[in-house]
């Protein structure tokens, strides 16, 4: 169980990025986080991953406070971040350096098989397409069998077709291994295709604005009326959070910069 308890983050430069973020994610659940640009989604994932520290509150995984990168937590960044000097197999096995060679090779082969890239094991990262590279990054994060996998806009650099393929891929990986997934995305449909629950955030300071259950049968049909109704609710929440001027909790009126509309 992943729990965020009143998590806040103020950067050293004074930017108040997050405030009072509390929610929990059950094992095997898929949660999507959506929100305008700059509302602190990446910051939030970095806090959960242990790469950064909250300035208030705590991130707790299985009753244990997360203060540094944790073996039960994997992360996939917006860019594949493959190490260019390792082959695809070397990259996928990066987190298994301390395991015996035979075990490592077997798990790497298995992971590459799962993402459909078994034939690319010996290839250099530079020789992969963007979608293939992102699949390798997902395989690398999954190989140590994390309990929680965090994904920060993992498909946003890809074209619409590849993105839909990779969403299906991610879901089939999830069906096999059942990790907890926390996925940040700008794409409302992606959020609804993937997630059991959609957390809508609101900026300055970043906080949870709405939690919307997407209680739909899988695989999800983008055309269905139920899908559409969830989509409407998410969009409505986003619209309100993207109003030109929003009334904050303490009644103060704040003008949101035009940049906040770029999500």
């Amino acid at each position, binding site marked *: 169980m992943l729990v965020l308890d009143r998590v806040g983050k103020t950067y050293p430069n004074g930017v108040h990025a997050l405030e009072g973020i509390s929610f929990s994610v059950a094992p095997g659940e898929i949660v999507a986080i959506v929100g305008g640009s700059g509302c602190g989604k990446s910051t939030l994932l970095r806090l959960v991953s242990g790469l950064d520290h909250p300035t208030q509150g705590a991130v707790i995984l299985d009753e244990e406070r997360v203060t*540094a*990168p944790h073996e039960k937590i*994997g992360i996939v*960044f917006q*860019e594949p*971040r493959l*190490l260019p*000097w*390792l082959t695809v197999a070397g990259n996928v096995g*990066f987190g298994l350096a301390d395991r015996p060679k035979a075990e490592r090779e077997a798990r790497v082969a298995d992971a590459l098989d799962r993402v459909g890239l078994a034939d690319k094991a010996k290839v250099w990262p530079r020789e992969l397409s963007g979608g293939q590279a992102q699949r390798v990054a997902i395989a690398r994060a999954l190989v140590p069998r994390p309990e929680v996998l965090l994904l920060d806009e993992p498909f946003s650099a890809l074209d619409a077709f590849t993105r839909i393929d990779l969403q299906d891929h991610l879901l089939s990986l999830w069906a096999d291994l059942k990790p907890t997934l926390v996925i940040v995305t700008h794409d409302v449909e992606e959020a609804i295709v993937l997630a059991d629950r959609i957390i809508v955030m609101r900026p300055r300071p970043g906080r949870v604005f709405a939690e919307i259950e997407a209680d739909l049968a899988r695989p999800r049909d983008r055309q269905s009326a139920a899908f559409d109704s969830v989509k409407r609710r998410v969009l409505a929440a986003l619209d309100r959070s993207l109003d030109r001027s929003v009334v904050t909790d303490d009644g103060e009126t704040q003008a949101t910069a035009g940049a906040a509309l770029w999500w």
Partner: protein
Amino acid sequence: MSVVPMTATAEQSAQSATTREPRLRRLNGLARPALGLILPVGVAVLWELAVRFGLSDGRLVPPPSVIFETFAELARTGELQRHASTTLARVAAGFGFGVAAGTVLGAITGYSSLASRLLDPTLQALRAIPSIAWVPLFILWLGIFEESKVALIAVGVFFPVYLGVMGAIHSVDRKLVEVGRVFRLSDAAMVRRILLPAVLPSYVIALRSGLGLGWMFVVAAEFMGASEGLGFLLVDGQQLGKPAQIVAAIVAFAIIGKTTDWIIAAIAAPFLRWEDVVRRD
């Protein structure tokens, strides 16, 4: 590592780019390096002929055949090998010290911003001094024998290596370092598995430019008084009026210098295959 694959690529892409005149293109690909040879070879042949036909006595500018004979003669008597190995030993020692110091200081200043603020200004100031200016001081401190020569070469090698290592560490992608952190690498593993491979390409370039400067400075060092070495052959040839010996020594410098550079490149090549692939794309 660089020249051959690159020309091959240029040729291939030129071929695939135009299907209309592939043969002309290929001719161009092969002819381009040959074109560059026309001038020097032509001048050499003309000069050779001019001396043969008595148009010049070739005393100050010896014809190619005389240079070749001198070279062969020096090699046969073992003189060439003796001088060359002396010079090589000096370069090796100077290169070793220069690389060691440059790598260590470059790594420290690259890694720690405190060390960088502490050391870098001084080192940059020292770098602004033309290295030959150290010669009198080195001779006073270290005498006129090997030590002062090695010191001068080491100074020459130091700066490109220092700057290369520091710059390479500064420019290591923070995002890749984060990948290391996600997988909870220890400090030592972080250095070995992320930082070292990331800086290796720039390090090899730094080593090669350091070596180039090493060869430059060994000549300066041997000019300042030596009884052995290729630089001595140069000075000796000048004092005794033997231009062929000078040119033969220059040729020897060129051959050995290029060979040592090639050795570094060849040793590094297997570790940089991932990068080579990029260039070939």
